[in-house]
């Protein structure tokens, strides 16, 4: 379980998160929606400690992410993250991209790591591209590779940060299909997205971010069909 309690975050004088509280249960799919600059991506970075926080606490399965004593590298094995910019490692083949962390972080043998990588890459539909370098792949394929790379660590949680925003429109579908598949398999996921139809379809709950706070939180039906706050309604009108 991910427990977020009254989190505040500043970038210099900018107050990006103003007291966010939220719990995500095992097996749940939570979507974060909201305008750009509303703090949802920053929230994601704070969950696996890529960004620090100034007040409040975040704990994952009871471990305080931002405590000094916490071994972040160890914690991050359990939290996979996929970025808007897929960040493929250009000097490694697709297979090597996925094998790297299981080998170096989990200490698996070459054979084990390769077996995991082949399985995960097959899972996201890249079984044919194992020996290719990322530069030979389309954006959508690189993004699916990034998902396989995170899954290869067999994480308990997956964070997705606007994973389709940088893609050409015709490539968005293949990546969303991969996310759908994961949600059906019962993966616990937090998805920051601008794809409202997708959010409505896969989410158990939807959180609407506005000015660094969760303005409204509820089931997709509640948020999309009968928003309680005027800001939520305004935002939905602007994107739908």
């Amino acid at each position, binding site marked *: 379980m991910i427990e977020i309690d009254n989190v505040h975050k500043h970038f210099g004088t900018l107050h990006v998160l103003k007291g966010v509280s939220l719990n995500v249960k095992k097996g749940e799919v939570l979507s974060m929606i909201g305008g750009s600059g509303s703090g949802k991506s920053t929230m994601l970075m704070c969950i696996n400690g*890529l960004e620090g926080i100034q007040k409040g606490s975040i704990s994952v399965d009871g471990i305080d992410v931002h405590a000094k004593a916490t071994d972040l590298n160890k914690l*991050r094995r359990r939290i996979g993250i996929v*970025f808007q910019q897929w960040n493929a*490692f250009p000097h490694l083949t697709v297979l090597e991209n996925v094998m*790297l962390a299981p080998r170096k*972080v989990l200490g698996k043998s070459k054979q084990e790591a390769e077996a995991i990588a082949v399985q995960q890459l097959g899972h996201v539909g890249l079984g044919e591209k194992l020996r290719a370098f990322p530069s030979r792949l389309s954006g959508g394929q690189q993004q699916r590779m990034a998902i396989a790379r995170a899954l290869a660590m067999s994480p308990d949680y997956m964070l997705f940060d606007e994973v389709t925003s940088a893609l050409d429109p015709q490539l968005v579908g293949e990546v969303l299909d991969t996310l759908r598949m994961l949600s059906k398999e019962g993966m616990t996921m937090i998805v920051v997205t601008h794809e409202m139809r997708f959010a409505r379809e896969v989410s158990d709950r939807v959180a609407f971010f506005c000015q660094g706070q969760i303005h409204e939180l509820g089931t997709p039906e509640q948020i999309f069909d009968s928003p309680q706050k005027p800001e939520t309604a305004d935002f939905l009108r602007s994107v739908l």
Partner: protein
Amino acid sequence: MAYTFQWRPVLHSLPEMLWGALVTLEIAALAMAIGTVFAILLALAKRSGGKTLSALADIWIETARNTPALFQIYLIYFGLGSFGLRVDSYSALLLGITFNNAGYLAETFRGGFSAVPETQTRAARSLGLGQIRTMWHIVLPQMLRAVFHAMTNQMVWSILMTSLGVVVGLTSDLTGVTQQLNVVTYRTFEYFFVAACLYYLISKIFTISARLLASRLFRY
């Protein structure tokens, strides 16, 4: 044309010249290796050192880049005497080229650091890789590609610069050996022509092997 070429004595002393070529390679390689270490330190000093450190690095880099290499060798050979240090011509040449290499490579490495985007580090850290492993597996290999070409060029410069040793009296490198033979025989053209061929061969062999290595290393 009144001049008659005499190649036989030159061919006779070819083994000597080849030994000289080995010394040339040795000095160039040493100067490159030590220069690279200093260049990394200089680049780091400019990137994250304090004001004093960064200013000292600037003095080193700008002197290396804005004065002749021969001047730098002179400064070490003649200048260090003022501190009571006797530097022989071999060390003066080696130190001079090292100083020069470090200054030029420091600028190369500064570019190399920024050639690997911050997002790569972020992605690696998010997979649980520590700082050192991220540096070793993700940042360094990509940096190497960014600086490889400039480094091979610098190595060629390094080889060519060794010829300056003769000006401060070095007799063991290729130019030094050639000059010794020249002083004895006065067959200036023949000896230096053969030396030129050897330098050309060394440069070409090095450049071509570096290119082959690059095509094996950087397949992406």
